[in-house]
């Protein structure tokens, strides 16, 4: 779909992520075949490849987030700072919430990153909803696929950490299933004809926001005061 509909032009980072996944999948197969599942070399190579995939996913998500919000320059400037801050905090949370000790360091780090990714995407959707701006269907579906996959990755890794031996095979299978589900969602999003993007918004001149925003906030505060007064009137009567 990426090649046929020439979507790689619009979604360059996403295309790289998908192709990297494909290539590394084949490579992982060859590595395991050559050195087996339990050798140290296989372990190092496969986790190294996983790190590469995560980086590519990070870039793809950044691209999708930009597609979703960057038309609105002011909001985007605010959003990316907040999202970056939230992602850092979530990684800290994931670090603190994980068990102490160095066991399972890589799955824990991966889980922290997955959680941060999910928070960033949900954050973008919250921004879209809060400012009531329209987004293209493809962008929404791509972001949704990433988010659901990351949420599932977090849960899967958490269960793995708890029930290691009995869960490894299922963990692997469920991980693949989640990835396939996301791929289906992305394929569905990209195989439909492209939706027309909203025409580039004409931005207001500098200074309009600085003049009007405090006025709006003042009015909102006054309406709030009215409601407080309403509340107080009731409270005193009780």
């Amino acid at each position, binding site marked *: 779909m990426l090649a046929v509909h020439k979507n790689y032009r619009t979604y360059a980072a996403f295309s790289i992520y998908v192709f990297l996944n494909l290539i590394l999948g084949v490579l992982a197969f060859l590595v395991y075949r050559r050195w087996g599942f339990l050798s140290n070399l296989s372990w190092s190579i496969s986790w190294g490849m996983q790190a590469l995939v995560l980086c590519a996913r990070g870039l793809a998500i950044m691209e999708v987030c930009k597609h979703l919000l960057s038309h*609105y*320059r*002011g*909001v985007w*400037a*605010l959003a990316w*700072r907040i999202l970056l801050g939230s992602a850092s905090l979530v990684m800290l*949370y*994931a670090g603190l*919430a*994980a068990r102490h000790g160095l066991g399972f360091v890589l799955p824990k780090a991966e*889980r922290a990153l997955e*959680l941060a990714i*999910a928070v960033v995407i*949900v954050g973008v*959707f*919250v921004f*879209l*909803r*809060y*400012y*009531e*701006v329209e987004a293209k269907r493809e962008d929404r579906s791509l972001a*949704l696929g990433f988010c659901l996959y990351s*949420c599932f990755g*977090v*849960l899967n890794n*958490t*269960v793995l950490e*708890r029930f290691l031996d009995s869960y490894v095979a299922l963990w692997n299978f469920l991980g693949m299933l989640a990835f396939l589900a996301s791929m289906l969602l992305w394929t569905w999003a990209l195989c439909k004809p492209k939706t027309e993007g909203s025409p580039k918004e004409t*931005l*207001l001149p500098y200074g*309009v*926001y*600085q*003049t*009007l*925003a*405090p006025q*709006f*906030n*003042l*009015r*909102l*505060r*006054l*309406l*709030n*005061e*009215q*409601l*407080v*007064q*309403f*509340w*107080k*009137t*009731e409270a005193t*009567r*009780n």
Partner: protein
Amino acid sequence: MNLTLILFFGFVALLLLALGWALRKPRNARNLPTDPHALEEGQRHVDYLPQIRQALAAADYDFLSKRVSRGALQRVRRDRRGIALAYLSALRGDFQNLLCMASVIAVLSPEVAAAHEFERLRLTTKFAWQYQMIRWKLMAGFAPLPQLDGLSALVSGLSVRMEAALKELGERAALTAELASPMNRGGLSAV
């Protein structure tokens, strides 16, 4: 149950809830008032406060309680509650219109200030919380009908402050237009 499991499952559950909320279509998606005057000034249901206060006045209720049947009195009470709820709802309408306009301005601006945006978020949350609390109380009949007496002073102050804010805004716009005028730039009078 393992603490790590609870922490991560709980967090993901919260995230999915937030995602569900964000993906849900708003009930009344961006419904800006079509009248430009209303856009400029808001609906300002507060202008009708004297009439509403009259409708809810305790004196009226006392007067009626001595003269009409119990059934009629109950109906009056129900109607008065309806008026209070309608007023609350209108206030919320005003609030949402303002909020919508503020969002449009923010979305179309090349830069926004985090302080203003956070202030708006705080006010929105506060309003939503208080609105629901009062509404539920009124609907459940736990609270006596508010007489809105305490509002009169506030509202007159509110109108004055709103007028002042609008006047200031108008003066600024006029000044900008005047400065931009080529005649005034050259110091010439039109007359």
